């Protein structure tokens, strides 16, 4: 339990605080299963509708009901949507955590709280707004058993009033949230919301500096979770076989995919499904089905998290060695083992890149936004089929399960790429084929699909030693040739994986390398470093492993390169160490965070400053 030294000075007394507009964070502390999620989404959406850049992060426990949950909403006129370390405006609804939540705040922060908690006794340097929620909820919600839920909507009204959030927008957000079907519920909740607003209006004289003002920075944007975006990506990638085994934080990816498939992938003419979704009995089965389906020509995908990846190790080695396309989403959570299932991490990087015994290497993609969850899902299928190998899309809980502002997704510009598949006609023309022959010099052979109507279509797939003709062999030369071709194939991939996004700063001799959700902290930290310490930086955001030439160039052009990642063992840096020469490695530094929360800019900045010795 943290015990912060607090200045005795009351904020009310004298010294005036500059108004803080569109640049603060709100935290709502409740318990899960209490239905606060709706109220929080409405709040976030209302701010979004006012054109203000906003992000929402849900910190929830690994159970279903009754444990502490925190939802933080960040508004940022600068467009920063990473986590903000400091909480400026707290809504304390959970008696269990209220004390610690309040003690953690910086002086000058504001606290809306449930009156009976008497939090104002704790500190004198905060702005307190006590609210008698139980008193207020009674009149607006006659039905006692609904009050637990409706209660939450009251704080929306309170907050709207204190932060001058437009109630029109709140109402609109609320209606959208409940949808047409739940009109009655919407009305009930709107009543509660207004009650809160009115109470605040007549009770509080605002003393804190926080408020919002309309902007025009969100026009046309959408709000979506990364998992939903990835699901859409698969649907538009033309996925045909989907297998899964539920696991947090991956489940919602497949569950939303199922929803879209049902809506958009039933064949008009036949009324039948153009896809198959199987909830497998476990992850071994899920990946087995994916490999079987892909082998027979389906675009197949499975989604899981760390524990599932570990269980897939043997099968993924088969996929690598038998050369079968597969797309596997790893929505990462904190490990090792069960770890923290509802916290975020980038901790499966190296073990996934090298997954399975023997000499194996797998391509990984690292989406950073919902837009990239969508586009990389499509790229992943093309890549997997082009290179006939399992491809991993490394999402994390923060990206997958939190709500993100995003630009509407681009409809795929190029047609689906199915890779080197020989049809009956091709076979007729060629008079046969050798499955594992490197015909084109790219290390990728030609394959046929079961059921191809030609007597020469067949070949025998196995995880044991095979020659170019896919025949069983134990010969030293056959085995070595095949393994060398696989290496060559992996090298060829470098030119085909998504290229990094690079911001070269001619003034910088320090460079950042980051990927996935670490991006948001790095982006903001760069501004902090420059503004506060005059440290100029360049930035390369990785999108894929194997690395492209760009990374090497980037390292060479800087004196020190900080690889920022959310794991303990500097795993991405490790992948670089595995292949780079001493000269580059000498320049690499590590910035790691592994506390399970979405990475924030201040943590990055402080660490870099320390390492830069400033």
């Amino acid at each position, binding site marked *: 339990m943290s015990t912060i030294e607090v200045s005795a000075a009351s904020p009310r007394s004298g010294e005036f605080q500059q108004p803080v507009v569109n640049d603060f964070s709100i935290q709502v502390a409740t318990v899960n299963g209490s239905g606060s999620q709706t109220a929080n989404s409405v709040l976030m959406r209302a701010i979004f509708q006012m054109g203000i850049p906003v992000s929402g992060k849900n910190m929830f426990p690994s159970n279903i009901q009754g444990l502490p949950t925190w939802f933080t909403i960040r508004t940022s006129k600068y467009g920063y949507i990473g986590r903000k370390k400091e909480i400026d405006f707290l809504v304390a609804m959970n008696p269990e955590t209220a004390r610690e939540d309040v003690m953690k705040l910086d002086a000058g922060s504001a606290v809306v709280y449930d009156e009976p908690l008497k939090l104002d006794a704790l500190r004198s340097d905060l702005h307190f707004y006590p609210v008698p929620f139980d008193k207020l909820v009674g009149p607006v919600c006659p039905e006692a058993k609904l009050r637990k839920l409706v209660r939450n909507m009251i704080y929306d009204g309170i907050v709207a009033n204190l932060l001058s959030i437009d109630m029109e927008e709140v109402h609109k957000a609320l209606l959208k949230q409940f949808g047409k079907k739940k009109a009655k519920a919407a009305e009930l909740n709107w009543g509660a919301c207004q009650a809160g607003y009115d109470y605040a209006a007549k009770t509080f004289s605002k003393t804190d500096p926080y408020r919002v003002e309309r902007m025009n920075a969100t026009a046309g944007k959408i709000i979506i979770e990364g998992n939903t975006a990835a699901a859409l990506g698969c649907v538009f990638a*033309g996925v045909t076989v989907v297998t899964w085994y539920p696991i947090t934080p991956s489940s919602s990816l497949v569950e939303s995919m199922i929803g879209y498939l049902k809506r958009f992938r039933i064949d008009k003419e036949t009324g039948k499904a*153009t*896809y198959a979704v199987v909830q497998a009995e*476990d992850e071994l089965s899920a990946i087995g*089905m994916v490999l*079987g*389906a892909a082998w027979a020509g389906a675009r197949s995908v499975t989604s899981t998290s760390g524990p599932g990846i570990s269980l897939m190790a043997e099968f993924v080695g088969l996929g690598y060695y038998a050369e079968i396309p597969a797309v596997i989403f790893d929505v990462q959570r904190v490990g090792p083992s069960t770890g923290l299932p509802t916290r975020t991490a980038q901790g499966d990087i190296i073990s996934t890149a090298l997954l399975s015994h023997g000499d194996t290497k797998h391509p990984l993609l690292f989406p950073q936004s919902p837009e990239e969850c969508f586009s990389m899902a499509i790229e992943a299928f093309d890549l997997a089929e082009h290179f006939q190998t399992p491809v991993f899309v490394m999402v994390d809980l923060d990206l997958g399960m939190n709500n993100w502002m995003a630009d509407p*997704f681009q409809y795929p510009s190029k047609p689906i790429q199915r890779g080197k598949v020989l049809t009956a006609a091709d076979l007729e023309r060629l008079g046969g084929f050798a499955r594992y022959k490197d015909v084109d010099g790219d290390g990728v052979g030609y394959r046929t699909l079961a059921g191809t109507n030609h007597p020469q279509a*067949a070949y*025998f797939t196995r995880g044991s030693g095979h020659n170019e003709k896919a025949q069983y062999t134990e010969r030293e030369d056959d085995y070595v040739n095949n393994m060398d071709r696989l290496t060559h194939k992996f090298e060829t991939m470098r030119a085909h994986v998504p290229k990094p996004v690079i911001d070269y700063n001619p003034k910088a001799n320090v460079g950042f390398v980051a990927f996935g959700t670490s991006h948001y902290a790095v982006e903001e930290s760069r501004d902090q470093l420059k503004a506060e310490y005059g440290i100029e930086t360049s930035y390369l955001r990785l999108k894929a492993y194997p690395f492209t030439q760009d990374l090497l160039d980037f390292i060479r052009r800087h004196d020190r390169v900080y690889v920022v990642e959310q794991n303990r063992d500097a795993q991405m840096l490790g992948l670089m160490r595995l292949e780079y020469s001493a000269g580059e490695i000498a320049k690499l530094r590590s910035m790691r965070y592994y506390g399970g929360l979405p990475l924030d800019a201040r943590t990055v900045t402080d660490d870099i400053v320390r390492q830069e010795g400033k």
Partner: protein
Amino acid sequence: MSTTVTPPPKKVNRIGLEVLSYKGAKTTLCAGCGHNAISERIIECFYELGVQPWNVAKFSGIGCSSKSPAYFLGLSHGFNGVHGRMPSIATGAMLANRTVLGIGVTGDGDTASIGLGQFMHLLRRNLPFIYIIEDNGVYGLTKGQFSATADLGSKLKTGVINDLPPFDCCALALRCGATFVARSFSGDKKQLQAILKTAIAHNGLSVIDVISPCTTFNDHEGSTKSYSYIKEHDEILNELDFVPFYEDISVEIDEGEVKEVELHDGSKLRIKKLGRDYDPSNKFDALKAMDEAEKKGEVLTGVFYVDTKKPNFMEMLNLQDAPLATLPESKVRPPKDVLDQVMEELR
């Protein structure tokens, strides 16, 4: 849809292929291994029924038994996967292309030891698929340790006695959802042929447990999976007669003792009960028969159960008739306006 075709010329089958087109590579299994005999039966049945070899896909796990798909149907795609996980691979492949005829060959270790979970969940799904267990009670390829189908009291060459009860794959198949369940013996050519042909014609999951002695590690005195033991204890449940859809049944024999099952493609399985009163469309009869045989220490072979009505996995999934694998982009990528609509919903 049963049609009469003029009998094809001597050396080729009704689709004009010679038996050679149904053979595979030379076996690398031991001389006398039961698995080789089963491969022979598979070759014969696919040849005689005139199944298009390149419309068949073969699957297996790891083991001597699982090697055997390389030794039959050389013109069919084959997938020799990892140990015990063939059911998932086969399920995926069948979903990708439901028009392909799928046949899996596995061992008792592959199925009942490491693979039991996948096997049981395959049963639930009633996937249209032929699942053959080449059952010798041991792990052949790793030199003869007991598998989970080894009988109580069976003895290894080393003298070790098995003291754990065996899993009866047929009983499990019956309880958990397979729609054609039979047991045979690699040495019983006629019975095994009738069963295999029925499986080829069946439109659901067929589970066939074939006792297939391991001559090298489990064919000695004291083994309950040796040739001599099976020959002595084989108790034949029913006499089988398979009539393909393209053949007329001229002679109608006495209905009293024959039950005729019409299969999906119009072929018929004619089951002649021997002695015991038994209805192969009744699960519980089958289980009772097994239990009695178990008590008597008999190895019951024949057709235990056949159900041609139960919906299969493809039907449950309301799956396209055309193979998912080769659906055109127009069918699998929704048009732009759909994406726009979704984006609008998310604004």
